[in-house]
């Protein structure tokens, strides 16, 4: 079975281009005639993931694999990592700097949103070892 793989680089602190990888993924899914509701869920997760890397992580990658049955979305970065993953998963908990909150980001909904919108969600992180988020969507 063929698998379409794509990797997108996420630049450090690059707010201007954050979200572009998710737009490209949306367009891929649209040409595959994917259900609009599913496209929306993947787009929300991709965007939240990209913003997380831009705000908290360092360099990062967004990786997507699509086959006929499912979509795998992996987002990883080499940033400072998350100390307390359980707290990070709470709605409204945020460690975003004030300057990002002033820009309208950092409401503490990123990870919970990603979990809610994906069919399967995993997160791995360790202090100073970066963060890896994996999501699965069934088509």
């Amino acid at each position, binding site marked *: 079975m063929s698998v*379409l793989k794509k990797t997108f680089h996420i630049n450090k602190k690059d707010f201007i281009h954050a*979200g572009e990888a998710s737009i490209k993924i949306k367009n891929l899914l649209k*040409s*595959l005639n994917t259900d*609009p*509701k599913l*496209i929306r869920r993947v*787009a929300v997760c*991709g965007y939240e993931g990209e913003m997380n890397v831009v705000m908290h992580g360092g360099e990062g990658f967004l990786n997507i694999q699509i086959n006929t049955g499912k979509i795998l979305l992996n987002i990883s970065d080499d940033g400072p990592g998350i100390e307390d993953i359980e707290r990070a998963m709470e709605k409204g908990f945020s460690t975003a700097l004030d300057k990002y909150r002033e820009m309208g980001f950092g409401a503490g909904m990123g990870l919970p*949103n990603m979990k809610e919108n994906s069919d399967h969600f995993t997160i791995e992180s360790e202090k100073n070892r970066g963060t890896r988020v994996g999501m699965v969507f069934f088509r």
Partner: protein
Amino acid sequence: MKQHSSYVYFDEAVCTGCAFSVKACPTRAIRVRNGRPLIMDGKCIGCGECIRVCPTGAMKAVTSGSEPLQKDRISVALVSPVLYSQFFGVPPGDVLQALRQMGFCHAVDMSYFLEMFQCAAEEFIVRNRKDEKFPWPLISPVCPVVVRLIALQFPSLLSHILPIMRPVALMAREVNRQLIRKYGKEESVTLYYINPCPTRMDADRIAFHHERPYIDKTLGINEVYADLTRELKKIRKPAKPDMLDYGPTENSLIWGLSGGEILDMHLDRTLAVSGLKETIAYLEKIEMGLFQDIEYIEFRTCPEGCVGGTLIAIDKYLAKNTIKKASRKCGFKRRVSADNIHRLYEKGWFSAKSSLAKTACLFSIQEEPLSIEELMEIDNILERIHGMDCSACGAPDCRTFAEDVVRGEASLDDCVVLRARGKSAEKI
């Protein structure tokens, strides 16, 4: 692929086969094949961007501008208030009178229906705060290009479109009723929409097509401008009374500007966005879950709003100035009574007749979806071309070209980069 879509057409005698419009088209609906321009009708949303960028004027809007008014028919002009912005310091009533002098039996002003729409939209939004049946942010249905853009490229946002009949549809319905009452259903009436842009049909207007016995046609504002200016110089007063007089007001002029629709709405969390690129960027963001704290977004794909339309006669900044002056003079008072609107709203008077599914199939083509293998093939071709979106092949960019090749609509030989590189595989 044809030489025309429902909204625009190529004048092949003037077209040089350049790629300006090919590249400008937001839905990538235009190709140049063998020096001839072609449009995929189903993909054209009528935004008029091609008309704007064409350096030779080969791209034209589909209107009935060249035909003279038929003397033996009853011609009715349906007027968008954008028309008034073209004449500095001239009251709307005079513009309508000048239209009548030009040969229209009736000239109907739209502003009354704009106010009705505004009230109904407010009512809907206030109710939606309680039951949250529709997702935030709601999107204005007024600009038909936006509705078509969503149907074609952002189908997941169809449920965000405010399900209230558009002002032009409210007007068309009412005017038709009155005309039937006066003239009967005989085929002697022609309705002319005087428009700032090449947008003719929308789901609502089509949805009640069977109720309307009359032919309707479109005229660009630029097509009536010269005649109107002449008539305005010899305006006859007092104006001939018109049974379809809804009392035009100067404050309706503000609708021609971006932000005019929401300016007088009693809502705080609203946005006005204008310009095609900006509209697309916002729709992308809404699709990714942003702006859920905004209740209503007014989109206009033309820069500065409808005054920036492609069928406008005078420059948009001059028109903007006219609007600002007129609105300062008269303020913003509504004529429609809130109680009346409330009563009509309860009766379902404003509910859009077109369902989401109908809009989707009217305005979005069912393009054959690609398979995963085909997408991988596209990536392979892109890697081989390694080009810079030169458009010499007649497609807007390398990716679209690769997609055309995979779909069997173009040949790899059309790529000049591949041809120049030949077998040596050198990079250019």
